């Protein structure tokens, strides 16, 4: 077992991005059964990145290769988008970002992968279908397992920022949830969601994992739905808190921000990393989900509090040198603009208030995804 969890070395600070995307029809913009038809088209021609089925027929997952630079990552995401949009047009289907579909009913969802779903469904009941939510996962390469665990715990302080910046699921099952990211509420319901246990040595983590698997609670790392989890077979940590943004440009900017944060954390080690960091963890995370950039972030070590938007502005100043080193000034300018002017959730609420319907909102989301 320990052998399977051996931490593979990877080039530090390299990036890989996965996006779960919505497939909707052009009539009422509800989620639709299109993944296998779409895959049949995209598989015909070689294309950038990977396009894969997900658990339901109305979801598709795209993933990039490994990149050390933001511009190459963005270029690949744009190529994947072009492939997807061209295929979707031929099938009269629309592709959209967003952390949750605003009005789909989970009881209507059709399942792509039956055996796996049956298994998950048996264990989790309605949670399994409610889990039709769409996230962005960002992988960051780490030199070894100890580095990965250090980064994982050091990053936890900044997850509320990422949640607030990416939040794009204010509407869920036909209502305004009052949350900026309602998607994470669906994730938190799972028993193994939340944070990884505090351990800074890979050997300690292995011991923890072996206890969990010996007691039959988990079989593999996949059973943990943590906000950040190590991915030993890739040699990465995987940040999983982000809603899928409405554009690939924002997805790439978020990945660049994570890359810069990681470099800063690794090189300068600015914060003490300890279990006490987690005292305010669920409070901060709730604030970010509920209020987004206007939410409050509490630092339990210094007992200081500020708005998440301010916290982002301060962090951006602190990491400026590293942004220059990584050629990430443009994407970080994008992040600063989001912190100042509002996230996707805000844009969605404004569009809906503008008089259209939720169907119209989804249509506009799909227009934004095209880059229109």
């Amino acid at each position: 077992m320990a052998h399977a969890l051996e931490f593979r070395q990877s080039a530090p600070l390299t990036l890989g991005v996965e996006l779960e995307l919505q497939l909707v029809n052009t009539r009422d913009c509800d989620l639709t059964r299109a993944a296998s038809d779409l895959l049949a088209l995209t598989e015909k021609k070689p294309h950038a990145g990977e396009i894969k089925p997900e658990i339901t027929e109305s979801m598709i997952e795209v993933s990039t290769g490994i990149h050390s630079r933001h511009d190459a990552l963005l270029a690949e995401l744009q190529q994947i988008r072009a492939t997807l949009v061209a295929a979707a047009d031929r099938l009269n289907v629309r592709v959209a970002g967003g952390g949750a579909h605003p009005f789909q009913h989970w009881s209507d969802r059709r399942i792509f992968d039956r055996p796996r779903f049956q298994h998950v469904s048996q264990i989790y009941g309605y949670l399994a279908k409610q889990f039709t939510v769409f996230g962005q996962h960002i992988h960051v390469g780490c030199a070894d397992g100890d580095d990965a665990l250090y980064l994982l715990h050091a990053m936890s302080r900044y997850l509320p920022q990422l949640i607030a910046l990416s939040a794009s699921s204010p509407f869920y099952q036909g209502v305004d949830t009052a949350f900026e990211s309602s998607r994470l509420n669906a994730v938190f319901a799972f028993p193994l969601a939340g944070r990884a246990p505090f351990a800074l040595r890979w050997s300690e983590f292995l011991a923890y994992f072996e206890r969990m698997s010996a007691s039959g609670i988990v079989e593999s790392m996949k059973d943990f739905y943590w906000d950040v989890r190590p991915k030993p077979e890739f040699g990465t940590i995987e940040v999983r808190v982000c809603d899928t943004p409405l554009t690939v440009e924002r997805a790439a900017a978020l990945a660049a921000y994570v890359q810069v944060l990681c470099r800063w954390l690794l090189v300068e080690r600015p914060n003490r990393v300890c279990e006490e960091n987690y005292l305010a963890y669920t409070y901060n995370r709730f604030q970010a989900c509920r209020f987004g950039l206007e939410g409050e972030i509490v630092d339990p070590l210094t007992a200081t509090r500020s708005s998440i938007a301010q916290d982002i502005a301060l962090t951006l100043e602190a990491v400026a040198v590293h942004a220059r080193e990584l050629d990430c000034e443009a994407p970080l300018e994008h992040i600063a603009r989001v912190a100042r002017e509002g996230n996707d959730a805000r844009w969605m609420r404004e569009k809906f208030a503008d008089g259209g319907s939720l169907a119209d909102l989804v249509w506009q989301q799909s227009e934004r995804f095209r880059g229109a």
Partner: protein
Amino acid sequence: MSELFFLPSWPPAADALPWYALLLVVAAIAGELVLRWLHLPRLFGWVAAGIVMGPQITGLIDAEILAGMRGVLDVALGVVLFQLGQRVDLGWLRRNPWLLATSVLEAALSFGAMFLVLLAIDMRPLLAALAAAIGIATGPAVALSLTREMRAQGQVTERMLLLTSLNCVYAFIAVNMLLAWLHQEYSDEVLAIVAHPLYLIFGSLALALGFAGATLALLALLGRRIEAQFITVLALVVTAVYVATALKLSLVLVMLGYGVMARAFDTRRRFAAYSFGRLGQILLVLLFAITAATLDLDLLPAGALAGATLLAARYAGKAMGVLALAPASGLSLRKASLLSLTLMPMSGVALILVHDTTALFPGLGATLATIIVSAIVMLEVLGAAAAYFALVRAGEADETRGR
């Protein structure tokens, strides 16, 4: 006056509401039995109930009552065509021109095939052409009913709905061009020859446009009030059916056009979530049951050969058209062959076209009816079964439906 004057008379008057209720109850129960015991879509039960209760078998519902149901039948078909129109996205034809090519090719090939085989069994060319033109039409009610009941989604479903609505339009235009040509053989009234088809086509489209505009304007005025939207649109749709009939325009073109335009011009998607809900379901039950009851089974012996020939040629033409352009339009050959099966049903629109022809040329209409009605009778179960099979095999039906 009888001493028992206080008792009601039996049977009730032909135009009375109870006949609808009876038909609905029997059809609905038959539908549920079919679903529960045979695991087939309810529409088979509705059709069976209609045939059994109709004048041909038990005569519980006789020809007089059926004639009285004509108005409701028109509304039911109108609502079906309108809903089909709502599901058609003309923009798709622009984004995927091969789809338009597929549609034109399958309609043309099936027309050609039907025409040639009917000629080969010694039918008069004009009659063969008319029968072939009517045969282009595919069944909107079956397509819609199966899609709704099985909550079907996917490429086979979407293309079935699109091709079906286009086929109804092609059949309508082809039949009316042939009728104009007939006019010219029998008379020299130039005005009637030219003006009638033009009136039908452009009048119908103009009416559809007017209703679509009115609908969208009212929806904008009403805002997000679901109940008010439902009642308003329903009233407008029923009115459109009435006006189309009163102005002697084409019900098919008006209602399909109304649905398509209401969707196409709905730039703010106010109309996107509109659904006829349970009422739409009731109208579908009535449409299937009444249509089945009207089918004249006595025509079958005389028309069976021609009807079967027509159907074989029709399927061959449609399948060839759909398969030939499948790869270009982004569909696997497997799914294309399933799609061709979904184009087998033929009923309501074909019957209307026969009816229209008979109204203009009674003698010709009778012969035509023998062939087309025989074909429809043979397809009534077979066509829907083929479409159902295709949607299930394509993996586009919801397997948990009805439980």
